[in-house]
């Protein structure tokens, strides 16, 4: 009997070890990456919206046109996307081509996780001169090329055409006239803010802050400043210009009363449902308003609030991991070039391309909102190109939230954020 009892645990031991080894190494078969001489490339992105469908069409077309390369696309929601990419890059399971935003490039490139593509660019196929210079340089790090920009998504003004006409903000031809500068903006927003029952809580707002980060970034950039100084050594939030930018934003809420405090508001839903007349949002929100039944909207370049005609913008960059075999690298380059060459298709899904030849084309000019937003491309200001950007952004977000909701006095919130940002910059 005791002998039999002993057998059970002895049986359990190898089983448990087997279980553990499965858990730690992954039991699945090695992925099949080359089939009958065809190279199968993995391509990751976070395009979960209608943009994903556009990308799928481009990828399908690529697969039809190329016999030796097949692209397998995986869409991962942005919320968890960078976790997967970062872990993939850290542990050698990264896809062959992946999309990343400009603010991620410095930390990835600095950690030698990205493939340097200087040679591929030199060998031709893509002309650096054909790209908008700011987007092109956002794909570089310490003098080397690590990615190719696919697009640029600048912030712009979305406005409700019906509400504009109702408020009489029209040009000579009776068409809704979007504001171009601060005076016109405040004047229009005042006309568009309607408080019918005079309870101090308007039913319709002239303007609303949607994504605080991009909105505040635009105001800061228009006053010639930013979250971090140009030399990337310290925070610029305590500068007089930063104070001017935030004073203007709070003025809209508490003095002009043309905009609600962002606390507990979903301002973008407000715009879509006609309760907000103007919003500053990225071009990528285009499809969400196009799908909104009964909403007549239009897009215009972001008005100029401060002395500098700057706007926030980001780009989707196409990159490869540092570790990739030469054959796959060359196949991946073919795919990247294809995507760049077909960025007009991509633009149709609600993006602005960065190839000058495409921007100048008649087809692109027919995409009304995209074309309007693209006018600000030469003035796009990206998030700071620093390895610490993603570490300091949470402080920036909290600071804007605190100022606009009057959780903290402005000077205090700005100096607290600056102190925290400086602490991180020192550490990294």
């Amino acid at each position, binding site marked *: 009997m005791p002998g039999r009892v002993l057998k*059970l645990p002895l049986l359990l*031991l190898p089983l448990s070890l087997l279980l553990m080894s499965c858990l730690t190494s992954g039991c699945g078969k090695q992925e099949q990456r080359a089939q009958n001489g065809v190279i199968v490339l993995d391509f990751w992105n976070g395009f979960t919206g209608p943009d994903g469908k556009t990308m799928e069409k481009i990828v399908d077309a690529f697969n039809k046109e190329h016999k030796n390369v097949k692209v397998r696309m995986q869409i991962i929601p942005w919320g968890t996307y960078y976790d997967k990419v*970062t*872990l993939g890059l*850290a542990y050698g399971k990264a896809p062959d081509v992946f999309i990343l935003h400009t603010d991620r490039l410095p930390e990835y490139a600095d*950690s030698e996780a990205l493939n340097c593509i200087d040679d591929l660019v030199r060998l031709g196929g893509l002309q650096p001169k054909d790209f908008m210079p700011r987007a092109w340089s956002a794909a570089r790090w310490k003098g080397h090329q690590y990615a190719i920009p696919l697009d640029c998504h600048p912030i712009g003004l979305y406005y409700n055409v019906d509400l504009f006409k109702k408020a009489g903000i029209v040009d000579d031809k009776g068409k809704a006239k979007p504001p171009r500068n601060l005076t016109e903006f405040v004047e229009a927003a005042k006309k568009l803010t309607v408080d019918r029952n005079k309870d101090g809580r308007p039913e319709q707002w002239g303007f609303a802050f949607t994504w605080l980060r991009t909105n505040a970034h635009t105001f800061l950039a228009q006053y010639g400043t930013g979250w971090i100084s140009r030399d990337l050594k310290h925070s610029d939030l305590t500068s007089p210009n930063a104070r001017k930018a935030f004073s203007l934003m709070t003025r809209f809420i508490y003095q002009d009363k043309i905009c609600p405090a962002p606390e507990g508001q979903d301002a973008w839903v407000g715009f879509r449902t006609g309760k907000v007349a103007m919003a500053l949002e990225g071009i990528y929100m285009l499809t969400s308003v196009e799908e909104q039944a009964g909403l007549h909207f239009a897009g215009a370049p972001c008005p100029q609030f401060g002395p500098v005609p700057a706007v926030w913008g980001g780009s989707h960059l196409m990159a490869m991991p540092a570790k990739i075999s030469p054959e796959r690298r060359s196949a991946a380059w073919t795919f990247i070039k294809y995507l760049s060459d077909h960025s007009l298709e991509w633009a149709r899904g609600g993006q602005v391309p960065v190839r000058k030849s495409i921007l100048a084309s008649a087809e692109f000019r027919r995409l009304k909102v995209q074309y309007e937003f693209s006018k600000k491309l030469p003035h796009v200001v990206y998030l700071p190109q620093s390895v610490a950007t993603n570490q300091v952004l949470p402080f920036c977000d*909290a600071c804007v939230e605190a100022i606009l909701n009057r959780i*903290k006095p402005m000077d205090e919130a700005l100096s607290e954020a600056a*102190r925290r940002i400086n602490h991180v910059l020192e550490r990294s």
Partner: protein
Amino acid sequence: MKAWNRNKYAAGFLIPYFSLFAVFVVAPIVYGFFISLHKWYILSPHPTFVGFANYRAALKDDLFRIALLRTGYFVLMVVPIGNALSLLLAVSLNQGYRGTTIYKVCYYLPVLTSVSVVAIVWRWLLSSEFGIVNYYLRLLGLRSINWLSDTKTAMPSIALLSIWWGAGGNMLVYLAGLKNIPRELLEAAEIDGASPGQRFRSVTIPLLRPTILFCLVMSVIASSQVFGQTYILTGGGPYYSTLTVILYMYQQGFGLYQLGYGAAVGYLLFAVVLVFTLLQFKLLPFRRL
């Protein structure tokens, strides 16, 4: 010899558990400490040894201090109120009325629900625009409250849902403790003319001391590690008002991949909780019967 054989079999049965325990608990604890001594960004090819620099940086970091204070505030709300509620529920369910089993199940059900489900349900309940709580407030002619987006109400709201979520668990422990109290003692007190209040104060509570100590210690440890509720409902905001230590550790370690710094924050929390647990054993008059 017999004892040795028995122990040998016992050891054999324990091997599967201990091997898993060693791999998934002991090894990560040791490895975590090792990581905390390095400047370790997940993608950097060579982590650099920095000794206790991460610990020093965390102690200088005002957000870590804020997170500690917020966690303390949460513990102070959840532990006393939660335990009082659990005890109250246990005592009322111990009266032997009919149908108490249904109530037991009802009170215990939230404990079985995952934190994400609980948090999402409460997000809807407390939503400023569409929430049922604000709906009733407005019905009563009161102003609606931005439960989760106001710095003053966000943490108490999270404490409230945590109390609701966890009350059933401690209730069962208290019930077990109450069942262990010999009926004769309560009857003797009753014969001596003690009122129900006196019986509760002088017989039940003293005999429940070990149970109370157990529940208090476990609640302090568990609530110091609050994470899921704040992560899902507020992400630490508005303006750091619900930033708890584990959330801060997560943000540093798994949001920004500053693994060394995140690990150091985790170890500092461990030290604080350890000190408080020892203090509870030392100071609370519950140790001896």
